[in-house]
Structures are given as C-alpha cells and as structure tokens.
C-alpha cells in the first residue's frame, strides 16, 4: 500500500466531505445553464477517474487492475458470457466509443484495450429509472447500488447506456472460490444488480479505489470540483474522451488517449 501522507489526507478529506449531507436531492438537482453544460455539485465533491490509456503496462497491467478490483469485491468469474458479472473490464475502442467511429484511427489505438467501468454519471439514467431507490447518487458523486433494496427488475440495465451493470443471473457463490474470498467484503445474492461501487469502504479508510491503487498511476482518482486536484490538472492539460457524451449523462470517467505525458 504505497500512499503518501499528502495523498492520504486528500482522499480522507474528500471522502468525508458531503457524506454527511442529505442524499435525498438526487434527481433534478443542480440547475445547469444549458442541459449539456457541466454542473458542479453543491457538496463540493465530485469524484472522478482519469484513465491514461498509455500508462497501463500491457496485458499484465490490465489484468492486475481488473483482478485487484474483482478480488477484493468478490466478483465471481462466470465463464458463460451471458451471465457474466464484471465491475471493470476492457474492450476495444470500437466497442467503447461506438458513437465516435473512426476508420482511420491509428493502429495503436484501434487495438488498445480500454478500461470500462461504471461511469458514475453526473446525471445517471439508472438512478432516474430505479423504482425503489436501490440505486441513487451520493452527494460526492458516487452512483450507489444498494443490493439490499434491489428487486432485480433490471430497469437500470436497460437504462445504462454504457453496459456497466451486471445482474446476478445465477448464484455467484457457485463461481467464487469460497475458501479464498475477501473475508471483509460480502458476496451478492442471486437476483440483484451490481456494479462498480467506487470503493467507499476504502475511501472511508483513506485509501484510493482498488483499481487506481493497482494501476501504477495510470488511473488517477480525485475530486473534479476541486480546481487544484490532480484530476483537474490532467484535464486542463490533456485532451480527454468520455463515453457517449452526447446523451448528456456526463460521465465521471475520462480517458487520456494522446501521447502520454508529452501530449496536450
């Protein structure tokens, strides 16, 4: 666990902020100037990831990140792709950004895997459609899925434009090595929806989300609402992509595509 004191305080601080605020005003809060414009939350916290595609070191790098997440969250490894549960995974540019096709893309990018996960949208459609408030938005920007409340109607899966949500079609425990699961984290039950949680249990302890920690700096985690944050600094200096920006969900996951440190 390599984490310096400054970073610790930063994360501990921002995860603390806003948690005390009421979560009730999830839906239509934040009047933007125009519907497409960006809004910053009143709580002063909006957690986000910036993923630098070029900094992930090959196959191993991706696998390390995915395993870091799936291992600590007891995400089952289900061979049948129809029943798959995945919190973070990779796919090609073509599949990750189907709305921005470019047949003349550099070969390097065409073949590059992109890390995909819940976008923790600022205006999440999944939250809008959930009939039981099982999924909702925290004041700090995390889109939370409460498996205790979920009735398994899968409306959120129809609503999510990013395919970020997984349903437990089968009992996940049949696909977990129950002897070697993370004893500190629950598994899920059959018939509920789950997805990336952005590791609130780690944030509470002042740790970064597991994927960011395992990424050797390729995934930068921080507060978008803070102009001094590292994520903002990268966004200021790099051209970044987001998935399906035109539908106005305002994802909080940014992809740095260009040439690493020197670009921008």
């Amino acid at each position, binding site marked *: 666990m390599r984490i310096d004191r400054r970073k610790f305080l930063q994360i501990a601080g921002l995860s603390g902020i806003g948690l005390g605020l009421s979560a009730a005003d999830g*839906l239509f809060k934040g009047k933007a100037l125009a519907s497409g414009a960006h809004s910053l939350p009143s709580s002063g916290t909006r957690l986000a990831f910036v993923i630098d595609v070029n900094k992930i070191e090959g196959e191993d790098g991706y696998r390390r990140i995915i395993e870091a997440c799936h291992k600590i969250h007891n995400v089952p490894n289900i061979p049948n792709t129809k029943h798959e549960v995945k919190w973070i995974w990779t796919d090609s540019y073509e599949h990750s950004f189907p709305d921005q096709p470019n047949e003349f893309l550099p070969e390097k990018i065409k073949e590059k895997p992109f890390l995909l996960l819940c976008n923790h949208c600022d205006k999440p459609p999944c939250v809008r459609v959930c009939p*039981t408030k099982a999924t909702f938005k925290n004041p700090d920007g995390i889109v939370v899925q409460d498996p205790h409340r979920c009735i398994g109607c899968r409306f959120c899966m129809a609503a999510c*434009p990013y395919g970020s949500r997984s349903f437990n*079609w089968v009992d996940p425990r049949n696909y977990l090595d129950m002897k070697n699961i993370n004893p500190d984290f629950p598994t899920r039950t059959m018939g509920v929806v789950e997805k990336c949680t952005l590791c609130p249990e780690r944030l509470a302890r002042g740790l970064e989300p597991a994927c960011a920690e395992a990424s050797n700096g390729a995934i930068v985690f921080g507060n978008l609402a803070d102009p001094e944050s590292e994520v903002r600094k990268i966004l200021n200096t790099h051209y970044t992509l987001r998935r399906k920006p035109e539908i106005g969900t305002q994802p909080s996951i940014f992809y740095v595509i260009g040439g690493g440190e020197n670009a921008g």
Partner: protein
Amino acid sequence: MLDRALKGSKTYWTLVIILLGFISAGSLAYLHQFKNGLGVTGMSRDVSWGFYISQFTFLVGVAASAVMLVIPYYLHNYKKFGRIVILGEFLAIASVTMCMTFIFVDMGQPMRILNVILHPTPNSILFWDAMVLNGYLGLNLVIGWATLHAEKKGTPPPAWSKPLIYLSIPWAVSIHTVTAFLYAGLPGRHFWLTAIMAARFLASAFAGGPALLIILALVLRKYTKFDPGREPIQSVAKIVAYAMVANVFFIILELFTAFYSNIPGHMHAFEFLYAHGNLVPLMWASSVLAVLSLILIIPPKFRENESTLILACISIFISLWIDKGFGLVIGGFVPTPFNTITEYWPTLPETIITLGVWALGFLVLTILYKVAISVREELGTAGPPK
C-alpha cells in the same frame, strides 16, 4: 354470480382443466427459476429483458383496448356495443392479471416486490406503471362486476359507476402511454428513443386488442348461446382497420427516420431485426401478416365477410404479438451499448412459464366470460338482439 363459474358443460370443464394443467406446469417451471435464478432463461447481461417483459408490454395494449368499446358505448351512446362492452372490460382484467404476473416472474427478488410501494419513487416510470396498472385492474373489476351485477338484478348500474367509467377512459390511455415511457425515455437505446413510441403503442393496442376481441366474440358465438349480433362486430372491425393502418403508418415513419437520416444507431436495430439476427424470419412474418391483414380488413367486401374477417384478425394479432411481444424489446437491447450483437432466444423453462402465465390469464378470462354469459343466459339476453 361467481357460482356460475362452478356449473358448466363438459367443454367448459375440459378447457378449465387444460388451462390448470398449463398453469401447474408454469408454476413448477417458476419454482425451478426461483431456485436457480433467472439464469435459467435466455436473458443475458446484454439482453436483460426478454420474453416476460415483452409479453407484459404486449398485454398492456390488449388491456388498454377495452377503451375502444367503452368510448363508443358510454361516451357516444352507441347502444349496439351494450352486449360486448363487458367482454372488453373482462378482457382487460385478464390482461392486466397477466401483465402483473409477467412482471412478478421477471423479478430477480420477487420477495421484495413491495419495495416499489414501501419506497415510492415518482421519478421512476416503473413506479408509475405499477400504480396505473393496479388502478386499471381495480377500475375494470369494479365497473365490470357492478354493471353485470346490476344487469342481473334488472336495475340500472349504480350511480357511482358512471364517474368511474369516465375515469377508466383516460386511465386506459395512461397505462399504455406509461408503458411506452418505460422505453421511450432511455438515453442510449436508439430503437426505443422515439417520441412516437406511445402513439405507436396505442395504435397497435387498439388494433390488436379489438382484433382479439372479435376472435373471442366469434368463438363464444360458436360454442355458447352468446351472440352479440353482426353489427357490433363490424363496428369493432372498422376500429381495428383504422388502428392497424395507423400502426403500420407509424412503423413506416420510424423506418423513414432511421434510414433516410442514415444515422447508424437508428438503423442498427432494424438491420438486426430484419436482416441478420435470429429474429429475421419472425419479423418478416410479422410484416407480411401486417400487410396481409390490411388487404383483408380494409376492403369492405372482405371485412364484412366474417370468415375473411377472422383471418384478418388472427393475422393482426400474430403480427402485433411478434412485433411487440418479441421484436420491440429485443431490438432495443440488440445491438448492445458496445455495438455488438448478443442473440436472445427464450429457453424451455422460460417458455413454459410464459405459457403458464398466458394460461392463467385465459383461466381468468374463461371464468369471467362464463359468469357473464351464464347471467345473460338466465336473463334470456344472450342470444342475438332483436
């Protein structure tokens, strides 16, 4: 009146027992699904709604179609519908029962179904759908039962039923509009993201539901003493014809927008459905049947001939069942958000459960129709009007 359902001919009891057989098979299959999870169905991470929700969507239309009889009879005082309006109301009860059962069997955690009421979420269309469906079921139960009861007693319908009947008219529209909104409000699902969705739903509902009603009325006439007379059936047929024309027109509008604009996302679902998915034969069958049905129902010569009329109605029902009870939901999920194709086909347990739910609906319908017709037979009003 319910006791009328307990006395019947051999045919009636055979039908009831067959339906009960299907229901039992469906229940057993559901227990299997309950124990092993929705993984026993053909649904997947990418196609996360399947047969159940599409049947529900289709049947909401059938339920809403009762309004096509209620409006002429109660609003325009079209007396000739007096005999069949109860058939429409009871069909609505059976359809809504099926809708709710389909939603129930689709739940991953059916034990928590009451969370929808315990944690009401007005921003969710599904919450509203649950509300309007329950309301519509209640309205039709109360109205249908009260009017039939009054008929049996030889009294005019109770005064309080009038406002409820008027309320049921917009309510019927609302159930299908809200159901269309389930789909039409989702960003990133191009096939569904269309302002015309609710209108399409209503058009298909007002074609499919009354078409089924004509089939049912003709079947009843053959096997029971019930006979609504020729004219009301012809009037319903005209409603079906207009609605089906509107429905086909709306589909053409969708096709035009998708293909003339040439926006890939808008075209993909149609390409999947009509060109390279496993639903291709079904979707083409739906389209061919739709055209065929128009040929059979628009020219008065065919429409007025009851043997071609029933063919037209069967074509319409099957065409719309494929279109709404299959293509609509699957086409929305495929292509996936990743622009990939994941095929869907219902599995055996899923099919048995679906059949079981349909059987449940038809059992409810059989019992309700049996009661209505028995009451009329006793009153001597089941036969053709003089």
